[in-house]
């Protein structure tokens, strides 16, 4: 079983949802980024999502756009982010790592080579934001050959007619986008989450993680309660950004500030447990 499947199965047995954390690779520099990543499992992150910086992140809000710019300024490349994962794997074997990014840097690296290198570095899954199922044919064989899950976003706009096609192209887990919008710009409507997830679950046995509008421990606990996981990204990126100095460099507060917030989120999810199976 893959790390992702193992992790979700294990949490299901524990009766709680996963905390999926998102941070951009190399934000604000490689060493700080690695230190945060290495601290995530102990702080309570169940799945680690790492953003691969891109100059034109069309699905991201201002916070993650700026994180990507900081990462690029710090020298982030596809190869560099893969190397970061390799360094993380030296100390962390069990926590799944998912890369989230845009297609062009992957194309530039070469799709086949990218999948091989990612798997070799210890990556478990990919979210390629701008590759919908309709365009995935040149990625799928390589991802499959290297045991990489292709995690797909399901949006509130994904209708019943389209759902089977998207689900059919998804492995690992489903990333349910709780808002129509870009990352970090709106708060999810928590009343509608449970029925939305229930509707999804009628079509799939894959775990469902909710993301895009989750900021607080309370929200994370609700999302992880109604689904199989909660993704928190922008809130962590904002904390990281707020800890930087005027020139955008890391300070002694940066690593603890992010990890403290992860601990708070993890505690809330663990305290919440699951109300319904």
């Amino acid at each position, binding site marked *: 079983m893959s790390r992702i499947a193992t992790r979700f199965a294990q949490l299901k047995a524990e009766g709680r949802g996963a905390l999926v954390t998102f941070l951009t690779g190399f934000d604000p520099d490689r060493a700080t980024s690695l230190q945060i990543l290495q601290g995530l499992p102990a702080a309570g992150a169940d799945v680690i999502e790492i953003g691969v910086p*891109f*100059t*034109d*992140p*069309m*699905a*991201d*809000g*201002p916070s993650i*756009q700026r994180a990507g710019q900081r990462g*690029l300024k710090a020298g982030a*490349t*596809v*190869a560099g982010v893969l190397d970061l994962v390799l360094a993380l794997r030296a100390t962390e074997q069990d926590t799944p790592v998912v890369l989230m990014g*845009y*297609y*062009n*840097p*992957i*194309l*530039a*690296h070469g799709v086949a080579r990218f999948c091989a290198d990612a798997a070799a570095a210890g990556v478990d899954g990919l979210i390629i*934001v*701008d*590759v*919908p199922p*309709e*365009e995935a044919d040149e990625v799928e064989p390589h991802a499959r050959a290297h045991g990489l899950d292709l995690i*797909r*976003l*399901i*949006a*509130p*706009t*994904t*209708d019943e007619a*389209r759902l089977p096609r*998207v689900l059919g192209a998804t492995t690992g887990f489903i990333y349910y*986008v709780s808002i*129509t*919008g*870009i990352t970090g*710009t*709106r708060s999810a409507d928590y009343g509608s989450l449970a029925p939305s997830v229930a509707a999804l679950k009628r079509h799939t046995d894959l775990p469902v993680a909710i993301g895009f509008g989750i900021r607080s421990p309370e929200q994370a606990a609700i999302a992880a309660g109604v689904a199989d996981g909660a993704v928190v990204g922008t809130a962590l990126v904002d904390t990281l950004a707020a800890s930087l100095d005027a020139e955008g460099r890391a300070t002694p507060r940066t690593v603890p500030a992010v990890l403290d917030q992860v601990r708070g989120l993890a505690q809330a999810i663990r305290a919440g447990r699951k109300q319904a199976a």
Partner: protein
Amino acid sequence: MSAPIHASGADAPATIGARPNSLRQGPDGRGRFGEFGGRFVAETLMPLILEVERAYEAAKTDAAFQAEWRRLLTHYVGRPSPLWFAERLTAHLRKAAPEGMGAKVYFKRDELNHTGAHKINAVLGQILLAKKMGKTRIIAETGAGQHGVATATACALMDLPCIVYMGATDVERQQPNVFRMKLLGAEVRPVTSGAATLKDAMNEGLRDWVANVHDTYYCIGTVAGPHPYPQMVRDFQSVIGEEAREQMLAAEGRLPDVLVAAVGGGSNAMGLFYPFLDDADVAMIGVEAAGKGLDTPEHAAALSRGRPGVLHGNRTYLLQDGDGQITEAHSISAGLDYPGVGPEHSWLHEIGRVQYVGATDDEALAAFQLCSRQEGIIPALEPAHALAHVMKLAPTLPQDRIVLMNLCGRGDKDIFTVARHLGEAI
């Protein structure tokens, strides 16, 4: 004139190396021209662009829709735009040409359109489509401001709220158009992310659309973006080439020998070229902005100096670094300052049907001034790039050859930029 109908299905053609019988059948069912194009968008947008595609397919064969668009083109835009034999310019270029050389130069005068450029052709089609789809809010991106002005104009006419995303850098260098858009009732939102130019405005447009999918239509200004936009904008702009073809047959009794058009995203060029693609004797030249030179880092020549990648929903030639990060384009012309190009141009480039060349900022400035003095037409800086190439090309062709250039915009918006470059205060 009948509406353009184009095949778009599994039978559509065009792989590199095996040229189809017709070059006018693309895109295929996946929205591809050869390997270029497609629908590389986030899942949130995917259902919406499929909806746009369905609506557009229906509109193509909807007689009432086509009639209304044609009515607007005739009575609101002022089409057909004239075909003008640039006699003084032709004579001027012959002076420096060898004996017997110096092709006849014609302009397709889309700068005479209402709002001053070709952009309005496709905007009216798209806004009619948006209304048909029941959308109540229009967004657009703009570089030079011509597409923004055209969209703001159509929205004023059709009583729709309009938001235009424009890079802060472009807001600065295209103040007259910013004010025009405001006068027309549009809200101009300066974009400060990235390089604050056209590509960043397009990113913001896509972000807005993702957040407002239910009521919003994104009116894209060029033959780029996810399918069906490259096809749809091309089809609407093809009115340029259809008219030019008839007008040239009437004027000269034959087709032109060479078509020349500026290429940023490439909508005016596609509009001129498309109806001639199957006329093997008609050569076509797309002129990219070479900025400070093709061999400097400061240009906007995606086809001449870029390589294929994926941006803004389509696979096409892009200016990018070795790691797939998009690099900044540079051109004196805000309308050409884009690191990509429409996917159909990428395909026409690869199969060799269209030749793509560059014209520098300085060459465009010289052409801008020459056109003003020789023809009494102040061109936009975008077609000034096309004219810069015509100035090189025409003297190398015999006098009985015909060069047809798309004069796709007027230069009112550019006089401040040009004055600054010429060191004059106005």
